């Protein structure tokens, strides 16, 4: 069999695979449909170039296979053709880059009304903190972290008192409410990633990183750690439940604030000392 046929079949098979593949994106559940669009654009342009280049190669292989009496063309340079190809490629690249940069600009510019969520990661788990009534998160220090202060909130920061603490790896989000995820790690690199939301960012110890999205489909989603963080990396999962306004409010009511926690702990302490005195 002529090798060209096999190469052709490989290209043809690739296209068929793409058409009939059962493996493809999960449905997007956030405002980052634009990312899907840029992927689709890149896919069609890139895929087109791939198929075109390979088919041209296959054509050459058929047409110009070795023959004793044929002499190859002798033409060291073709300035005009090279110029055309350079400019065409440049234009194609600009067409791919420009929408990417536009969407990146949206990605790094967080809307003013976004709800800030502190996502704290460690080996190997997650917990979350939401601002209280003041709408602001308190500052934190890793050195403050202990049993009574699981988030390491600075005790002298007034904004921290009413922060809502969620000591669970599942968090609820309100549908159509933009959120700014503030990522914080206490030990190594992690990455809070929900495939359906498309966006992701590493949690880096020593700094706070961020990204934002707006969930727009209610439902339960799985959180994966997307940055290698040691042997437990593959087991570091969490969850997100996107709810409508009413459900979300109900859920929110049940959560504990930092001052609740402190009060509860103090009551517990007092109980203990009382018992000890008896």
């Amino acid at each position, binding site marked *: 069999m002529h090798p060209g046929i096999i190469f052709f079949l490989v290209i043809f098979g690739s296209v068929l695979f793409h058409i009939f593949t059962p493996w493809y994106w999960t449905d997007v559940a956030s405002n980052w449909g634009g990312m899907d669009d840029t992927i689709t654009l890149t896919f069609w342009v890139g895929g087109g170039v791939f198929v075109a280049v390979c088919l041209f190669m296959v054509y050459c292989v058929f047409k110009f296979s070795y023959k004793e009496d044929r002499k190859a063309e002798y033409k060291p340079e073709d300035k005009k053709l090279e110029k055309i190809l350079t400019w065409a490629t440049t234009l194609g690249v600009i067409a791919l880059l420009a929408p990417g940069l536009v969407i990146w600009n949206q990605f790094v510019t967080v809307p003013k009304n976004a709800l*800030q969520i502190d996502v704290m990661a460690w080996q190997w788990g997650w917990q979350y903190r939401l601002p209280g009534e003041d709408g*602001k*998160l*308190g*500052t*934190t*220090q890793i050195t403050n972290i202990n049993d009574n202060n699981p988030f390491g909130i*600075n005790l002298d*920061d007034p*904004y*921290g008192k009413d922060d809502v603490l969620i000591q669970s790896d599942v968090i609820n989000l309100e549908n159509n409410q933009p959120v700014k995820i*503030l990522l*914080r790690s206490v030990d190594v690199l992690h990455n809070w990633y929900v495939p359906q939301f498309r966006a992701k960012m590493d949690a880096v110890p*020593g*700094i*706070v*990183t961020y990204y934002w999205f707006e969930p727009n489909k209610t439902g339960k989603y799985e959180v994966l750690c997307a940055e290698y963080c040691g042997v437990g990396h593959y087991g570091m999962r969490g969850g997100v439940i996107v709810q409508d306004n009413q459900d979300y409010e109900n859920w929110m009511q049940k959560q504990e604030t930092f001052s609740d926690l402190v009060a509860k702990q103090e009551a517990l302490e007092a109980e203990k000392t009382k018992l000890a005195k008896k």
Partner: protein
Amino acid sequence: MEETKKQEQTTTHKIGIYLWIWGLLFVLSFFSYMVDWYQFQGLLRWSLILLFMFLKAGLIMAFFMHLFWERYALVNVLLWPMTAIACFIFLMVSEFKYTVFTRLFYFVVGGA
């Protein structure tokens, strides 16, 4: 290896030029020491330090290392890669500013 013919033709420089450069290096070092002595601060300190540093480096490279007399082929090969370093420095400056911003903002100041 190296052509022996070359040896006789290599003209060496007058000793004066070396002594001059030597003296200048001492003077510039003295100046940069004075920057610290008089405790200049802020932008002035920065620009003086960098000025004297680059002057000294330039003199050493140009005259002690003979780069001033070398052909441009060599000089350019040596200097162009420095653009990569310059890019690295430039980006790391904005990186450390960003790092220190997030640290101050989220760990110390707060209020957002």
